[in-house]
């Protein structure tokens, strides 16, 4: 029963991520939906594999896949967002009128 619940969670996370990405107009917004299957989906999948197969090679390799996806998703998402901003502005440094707060390298006093 636990395996079924976890697999349903995998389906939900994947569909929410794909549909959310599909619905967003801006690529920067769509980028955020990568985290749903990458984090929730892979964690639920790893738990399901461990429940199904126990202490096995498949379980540990799925855990490795989960850790790889968790690690690289943040890096690739950051690199993609930086590329989008650089492509639009010519640079990716913060501008004074940007609607979000940035941590500047030098404190402005």
């Amino acid at each position, binding site marked *: 029963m636990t*395996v*079924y619940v976890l*697999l*349903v969670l*995998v*389906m939900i996370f*994947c*569909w929410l*991520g*794909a*549909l959310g*990405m*599909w619905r967003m107009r801006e*690529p*920067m917004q*769509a*980028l955020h*939906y*990568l985290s749903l*299957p*990458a984090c929730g*989906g*892979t964690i639920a*999948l790893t738990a399901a*594999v461990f429940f*199904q*197969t126990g202490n*096995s*090679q*498949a379980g540990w*390799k*799925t855990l*490795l*896949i989960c850790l*790889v*996806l968790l690690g*690289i*998703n943040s*890096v*690739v*998402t950051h*690199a*993609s967002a*930086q*590329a*989008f901003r*650089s*492509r639009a502005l010519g640079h990716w440094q913060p501008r004074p009128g940007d609607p979000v707060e940035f941590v500047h390298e030098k404190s402005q006093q």
Partner: protein
Amino acid sequence: MNFWLLTGMVVSATLVPCADMCLRGSAERRLVGLEMTSLIITIALVLFTIGFGRIPFIDLPLALSIMSFGGGLVFARFLEKHL
């Protein structure tokens, strides 16, 4: 058909919106679609591996997850500087 294969099929169906993202729109949207596609395919390959009981094939999604990292970074850098 067991529940793992059913889950793999349902998860694979999310490749339709991913394909729409990859085939239409701006280059940025296509890159996001590509990254989501690699994620979805990795998860689907794990599901099919367990579903079919071919445990050694779990190396395929492991290799894909590692290689998609390099692919995503290369495409992002290419998009930033050359496209």
